[in-house]
């Protein structure tokens, strides 16, 4: 790991990048798709270094907490407020997303109900297993990275016949969202830095259409500073050569084929549908829902929830525009004023992968005086 943060190696990579950017004769604009990349870029102070090297980075939609529309969050809030004796288990960030009905943290649970923060869906299933009299709903948001674990838990719950457990799914697929951004044409992207952990599951093939049909280069990257710069250099090389492809700059961890076992598991339990994303609207085959055989595990019909109904953001919140890369967080009127990490008005200021939180926390970069 150490060498991927080594300042000498980093300087060398930045030098290569600057040289390639100069050959291009214009400022390349790269989208880091994933919030974890945004975090790493900012935390390590790479954004100003890349700007000095002539590369502009723009954050993409890769934060599952953020792209889950308010309707689903509101369904979860309503469920735990109006049901008795229920545990709503979810990831920590999900509890702080503000909606017009407050957040899970401000919600008052029904009699005997509670909200529990978990780090894996298995923890929620374990509670259901331990206490059959208690109803447990796992509110799970995630991309291809987390989906296999959720599918695995669903399969186990079904196999063990655990009836007091269900899942409120907010499961999203990355490649269709990138296609939607390209089709919308609101932002000109020179290349994509693809997320290493999502790619560990899906492999390189699902991005190939971006190079083939849109002529846009890209590279799969890990999360250390050196990993990201290797990907940036590869994208610029592809641009200079005019040969767009999907480069794999994370081969120390993954192969081009991804993880077929995990994919088979996802396919066995879940099926794609036209899902609604915050900011991006309806995208064909971009979400996953339970297949008929596993429909009993879906919390929405079990509890009469209508997660698809409300899609209105809080007034003034521009998370949707941030997620499409159309504006930077600083471009939102609320950023850093009414909307701050301790008083968030949108999910991008809540999630650790949210662009607004990251820009607020790490974004006020400084450069050394010459």
């Amino acid at each position, binding site marked *: 790991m150490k060498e991927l943060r080594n300042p000498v190696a980093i300087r060398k990579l930045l030098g290569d990048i600057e040289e390639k950017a100069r050959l291009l004769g214009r400022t390349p604009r790269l989208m880091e798709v994933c919030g974890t990349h945004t975090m790493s870029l900012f935390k390590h102070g790479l954004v100003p270094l890349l700007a000095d090297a002539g590369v502009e980075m723009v954050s993409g939609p890769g934060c599952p907490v953020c792209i889950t529309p308010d309707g689903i969050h509101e369904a979860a809030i309503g469920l735990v407020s109006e049901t008795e004796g229920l545990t709503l288990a979810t990831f920590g960030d999900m509890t702080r997303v503000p909606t017009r009905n407050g957040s899970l943290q401000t919600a008052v649970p029904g009699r005997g109900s509670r909200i529990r923060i978990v780090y894996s869906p298995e*923890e929620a299933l374990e509670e259901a297993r331990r206490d059959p009299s208690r109803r447990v709903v796992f509110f799970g948001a995630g991309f291809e990275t987390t989906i296999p674990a959720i599918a695995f838990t669903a399969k186990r719950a079904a196999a063990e016949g655990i009836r007091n457990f269900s899942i409120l799914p907010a499961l999203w697929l990355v490649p269709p969202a990138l296609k939607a951004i390209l089709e919308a044409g609101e932002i000109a992207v020179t290349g994509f830095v693809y997320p290493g952990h999502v790619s560990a599951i899906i492999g390189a093939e699902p991005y190939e259409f971006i190079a083939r049909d849109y002529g846009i280069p890209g590279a799969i990257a890990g999360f250390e500073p050196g990993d990201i710069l290797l990907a940036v250099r590869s994208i610029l090389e592809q641009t200079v050569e005019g040969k767009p492809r999907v480069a794999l700059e994370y081969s120390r961890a993954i192969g081009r084929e991804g993880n077929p076992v995990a994919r088979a598991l996802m396919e066995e339990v879940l099926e794609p549908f036209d899902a609604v994303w915050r900011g991006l609207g309806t995208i064909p085959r971009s979400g996953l829902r339970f297949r008929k055989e596993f429909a009993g595990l879906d919390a929405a019909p079990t509890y009469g929830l209508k997660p698809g109904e409300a899609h209105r953001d809080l007034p003034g919140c521009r998370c949707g525009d941030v997620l499409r890369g159309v504006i930077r967080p600083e471009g939102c009127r609320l950023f850093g004023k009414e909307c701050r990490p301790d008083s968030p008005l949108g999910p991008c200021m809540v999630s650790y992968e949210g662009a607004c939180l990251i820009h607020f926390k790490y974004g006020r970069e400084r450069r050394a005086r010459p």
Partner: protein
Amino acid sequence: MTKVSLELGSGGRLMRDFIAGKILPSFGNPILDELSDAVHLPGGVAFTTDSYVVDPLFFPGGDIGRLAVNGTVNDLVVSGAEPRFLSLALILEEGLETDVLDRVIRSVSAAARAANVRIVTGDTKVVRRGQGDKVYINTAGVGRSVARPRLGKIRRGDKVILTGTLGDHSLAVMLARGDFGLSSSVRSDCAPLLFLLPLWKKGALWMRDVTRGGLATVLFELAERLHYPILVEEDKIPLSKPVRAASELLGIDPFYMACEGKAVVIAPAAKAAEFLRLIRRHPLGRKAAVIGEVQDRVGRPGELLLRTEAGGLRLLEPLTSELLPRIC
């Protein structure tokens, strides 16, 4: 109607706003206004108080009793006082097992002996089941003033020394709660910092124990009061293996994690090497390092900057949202 949230007690911005907006206007006086961890009273006496609500009561490397002694002892030490006497106030929940209470009391006793302080007064209250959580402790501490922090004397070139690794206490408590379903060899660093006392006589300019809010918040609050920016070098910061792993795997930022046996010392430039040698000589200071400097090459006065391992430069913000309630 606004309500008190957990974040108010996090040591972050909300707490700072609360103190500035509610506490100071209500009670303000020249002694309180210093807002130091312990205050120097007329007659060479230093005074402090702190409450302890850690959950769980027992965790690897410590427990609430040990914390209640060392936390208060350390507040005195970093304010320039030799700890002498402690009060001990217990708030117990009805139904608490007496075995648990005995363990806590034994631990208070052992910690007080180790820190060379005497418990000289106290109080016990019991609240109904569910109206408290097992044991809460408040301790107040009295010490003998040995020196005053000299913020006004901090100059360009003075060094920032961190006395050991960051974050071990936070991580030990988190894992003891079973939050991650992970196990690790990490232990809380809960310990008395008495070995730092001699540095005051040798010209230490300022000290602070790194507790809630973490290193970033502690240094941010210092930088705000200086006429120079502070620059911290990420690659100089000592981290234990478990904390490094947690920061990489779980994305928890060690800059905001709490310690209970580490301090930041501002040393005059000319004495930094000697200070470091003295600190490292003590078992609790073996991993000490100079992690930064008061300087004016980068940044603006009052700013806290970080040179990242990768060579980037960014501002370090104080903690804004609660990482984890009831850590101490």
